[in-house]
């Protein structure tokens, strides 16, 4: 730990603010939650590599639905929102409320773009025949990415409330900066989960003609 951080040590038995410690413990538990969802998706992709059957009875592969351009754009947007969140936290630590508001508005805007992309993706997939009920792939995919999207939506709502709260004059000093930092931790967590999802769910489907799971397909399906 740096000397500067030591100078701002909280007056608790651990030297860490309780709010921050609780948030980190929550994130650790959320890590296990997402770990289970990602594991389930990967295992079922391994067990059922054949994708899904659409309404007309045609065998479809997930690679035919994915849009690497859209997903890459979403990933870039979320990474940049994380950058803006780090700047917002930094601004609050320096007591620059206007800079904080500007950066938080950027995070909210990027978060809403990400959610818009996800809504578009889900709608597109649904119309292409992939539903939460018609295949194991649909179930695990929608539950995993939907849970992540819900986290993003909660984060956006939290930041909108924090933005308006900053106009009351109560969001100031060390405690104000701590509140923003805790919200920032949550937002960054949402970002790191997406980093894993982007690789484990999307990118691996582009490896080989039938994705990374294609080797498990029966010859008749290929």
């Amino acid at each position, binding site marked *: *730990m*740096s*000397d*500067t*951080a030591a*100078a701002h040590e909280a*007056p608790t038995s*651990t030297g*860490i603010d309780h709010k*921050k*410690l609780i948030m*980190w*413990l929550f*994130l*650790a*538990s959320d*890590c*296990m939650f*997402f*770990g289970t969802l*990602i*594991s*389930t998706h*990967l*295992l079922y992709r391994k*067990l*059922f590599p054949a994708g899904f059957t659409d309404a007309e009875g045609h065998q479809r592969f997930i690679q035919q639905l994915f849009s*690497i351009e859209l997903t*890459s754009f979403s*990933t*870039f947007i979320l*990474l940049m929102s*994380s*950058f803006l*969140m*780090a*700047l917002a*936290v*930094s601004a609050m*630590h*320096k*007591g620059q409320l206007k800079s904080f508001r500007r950066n938080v508005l950027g995070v909210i805007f990027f978060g809403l773009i990400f959610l818009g992309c996800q809504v578009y993706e889900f709608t597109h997939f649904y119309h292409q025949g992939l539903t939460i009920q018609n295949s194991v792939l649909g179930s695990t995919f929608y539950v995993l990415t939907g849970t992540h999207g819900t986290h993003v939506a909660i984060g956006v709502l939290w930041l909108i409330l924090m933005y308006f709260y900053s106009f009351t004059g109560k969001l100031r*000093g*060390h405690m104000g900066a701590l509140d923003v930092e805790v919200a*920032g*931790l949550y937002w*960054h*967590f949402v970002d790191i989960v997406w*980093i*894993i999802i*982007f*690789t*484990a769910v999307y*990118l*691996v489907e*582009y*490896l*080989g003609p039938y994705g*990374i799971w294609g080797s*498990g397909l029966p010859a008749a399906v290929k």
Partner: protein
Amino acid sequence: MSSSHEAAPSPDFLVEEVRRYHHFIVLALWLAVVTGAEIVLIYLPIPTAAILTILTLMSAGKFFAVILWFMHLIYDKRLLFWCFFAGLALAFATYTALLMLFSADRIDTRWFS
């Protein structure tokens, strides 16, 4: 809350914050470049195993870069790192255990349908 917590930030603290600000900019650029490289990588004509290994390393690099710098773990107390690492280790252990339990070679998937 005590009055010491409402005091203006010290000059040392502000210098540190400015230093972090530059770290954040460099990291954001680095994250964008690595994400771009990941997308290019999946189209390269190299063995799948090699691509998968590099993708995993890149994702892990991005993951830890965000938690260390953006989430301030590198500046904060070690206890926070170990708290989070415990959750992360359990998540990874869950995946490994499930992978061992549900090996595709040993399970009859007709049971599910």
